């Protein structure tokens, strides 16, 4: 705990504002799709401490592997913005192809794989040289994007083709396709890289795929009392490092499902805000933040108790969230 500066902050006014960028706690960055801003949440106080103007229609956001930069898909500006996390200023833009929505960074910290939703391609950009290394044709409406922990595979999901496209990162070419249910939105590798978990929003399922064989291991489905099955629309997926839990954000069902990541059994459903899409863990994985688009807030889930401990008002239509660990 580092309460000193936070307590001083309000009293110091301008000084605090100047000091704020020198992060003293873990901070969560939330992209507000309809406000063209990022909200910055202090993870100790669980309060919004800053709101930053960014490009048009910010959606996917992610952090560089060294935690110094934040990449922001500014979808309607057709660009990826680069924010310096020390100064919280946009310092650069990357060529991204049209309408970037989600992306994933290769473990080499250089190759950024970007879904170009309107063009049915995945663009690979070297973030250092800003060169476009490849543009790979995929199905209709590419969305979810993930790179395996060993850096060998990139998977892209296409929402209207209903496929996982396996991109060999060495050749930057398509190697295989896996059919899943309607409208796959998001894909996430397990930390050991052995499985990929892909959510299908309209199908209402999460498909677990064995990476080595690229065969489907399990189709998970969800059921919440009093919620019509059509409203259960899985989007974001987050897996704990210890391999114990998977959390699945269920969109307009306003719940997050807790899944035993080993047995694939659904353990619980946690009520959060309206239209929950994406999530991120606090650095120590004791908390999980969810973006709730319709209610314009972020729910904080205590991972041990599996309970919501707070809702934090952010901007309009929060989309993505990334927790940046305190560098100290």
């Amino acid at each position: 705990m580092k309460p000193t500066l936070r307590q001083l902050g309000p009293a110091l006014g301008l000084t605090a504002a100047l000091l704020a960028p020198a992060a003293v706690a873990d901070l969560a960055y939330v992209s507000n799709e309809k406000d063209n801003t990022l909200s910055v949440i202090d993870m100790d106080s669980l309060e919004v401490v800053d709101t930053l103007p960014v490009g048009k229609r910010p959606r996917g956001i992610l952090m560089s592997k060294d935690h110094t930069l934040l990449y922001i898909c500014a979808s309607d500006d057709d660009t990826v913005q680069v924010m310096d996390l020390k100064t919280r200023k946009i310092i650069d833009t990357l060529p991204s192809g049209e309408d970037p929505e989600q992306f994933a960074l290769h473990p080499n910290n250089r190759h950024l794989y970007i879904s170009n939703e309107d063009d049915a391609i995945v663009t690979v950009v070297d973030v250092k040289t800003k060169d476009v290394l490849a543009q790979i044709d995929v199905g209709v409406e590419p969305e979810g994007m993930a790179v395996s922990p060993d850096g060998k595979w990139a998977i892209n999901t296409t929402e209207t083709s209903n496929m996982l496209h396996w991109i060999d990162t060495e050749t930057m070419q398509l190697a295989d396709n896996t059919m899943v249910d309607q409208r796959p939105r998001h894909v996430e590798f397990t930390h050991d890289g052995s499985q990929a978990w892909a959510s299908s929003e309209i199908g209402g399922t999460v498909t677990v795929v064995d990476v080595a064989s690229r065969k489907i291991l399990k189709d998970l489905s969800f059921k919440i009392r009093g919620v019509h099955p059509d409203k259960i629309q899985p989007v974001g997926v987050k897996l704990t490092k210890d391999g114990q839990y998977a959390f699945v954000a269920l969109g307009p069902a306003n719940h997050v499902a807790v899944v035993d990541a080993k047995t694939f059994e659904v353990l619980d459903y946690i009520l959060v805000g309206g239209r929950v899409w994406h999530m991120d863990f606090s650095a120590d994985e004791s908390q999980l933040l969810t973006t709730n688009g319709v209610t314009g807030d972020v729910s904080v889930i205590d991972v041990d108790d599996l309970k919501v401990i707070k809702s934090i008002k952010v901007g309009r239509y929060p989309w993505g969230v990334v927790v940046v660990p305190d560098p100290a």
Partner: protein
Amino acid sequence: MRPMRPGVALIAAVILLTALPVQALEVTVGYIQWQPYQGPVLSTTLTKPEDAGLKGAELGVDDNNSTGRFMQQHYTLDAVVADSRDQAVNELRRMQQAGIDLFVLNVPADLLKQMTEAVGPHALVFNAGAEDDSLRTADCPPNLLHTVPSRAMLTDALAQWLAKRQWNEAFLITGPTDNDKAWVAAFHRAAKRFGVKIVEEKPWTFDADLRRTASAELPRFTQGDDYDVVVVADERGDFGEYVPFNTWLPRPVVGTQGMSPEAWHRSVENWGAGQLQSRFEEKTGRPMISEDYAAWAAVRAIGEGVIRTKQAKATDLRTYLLSDEFQLGGFKGRKLTFRTWNGQLRQPILLVHPRGLVSISPQEGFLHPKTELDTLGYDEPESQCRIAD
């Protein structure tokens, strides 16, 4: 040499086949559009594009191909916008002779029935143009599926919303055409189901040119005891455009004009719809409308069936599309499926004004034991059709 046992021969053949380079599966969809001339109308500035429907089918084929190329499938559209009924029938014959057995037809109900009969039970037909309730209640060829919503679905969507807003008293203005009469009949049914009272019903008979006299004529025409809303039944857009803001009482106008129930509209952006809108606009230079959506959904349903079953036989596709396995992502926030009794595609209905989305039906609170989407249109007990049996 001794002859091989049949089993061995079969295995040999299979090995030979799999060793050959994979042949692409070719799927051709026949699209025929003919809609009769609606007669002269007063409001002539905003007309429907002549390729309404066709462009949706074309985009559906593009979308199918974008997916199909990963599966060694190739889709082609054999499309005709006919000038006459006869030409539509002749083109159908030509397509049949060319071996096509998957059709998307954007034609009126009587011609649709004739053409569906002509292609026979081994072909599969999608109705992308006829809203007639009779095709969903009594007169249901088993090889006909509907992606265009019925009038009952549209008017139910509207009446649910009126009930939800508690705008329970309607002043109904009825147009003179057969289609207008069918719309009025559907609205009567919907009003009764959802508790909307038609306090006055008046046929439009004036023949003056409203462009000069709308403000003078319509207030008097809509004079009456109190009502909550004016409902217009004017499918071809003859006089209805002049009703909003010209009513005797300051009341909103809904129905075929004002706020209307639609299968699709440019104002939808949720659920990824923005992407469908921009794909369509980029291709055609105009917004996507309900006719385009119905044709797009039909071609996509075919694509989804072929992609999942990895074959293109019409009868097998029909079985798959009517099964629990089938689901279509239709950019309306939930999966779309076909009703097994009458082949109607279940779908949410949008309530829109010309530049915005007002609401989406089914409205919350209208419950159904199976799916709330079946509160729109003719539910199984209300329909005599059992096409899946």
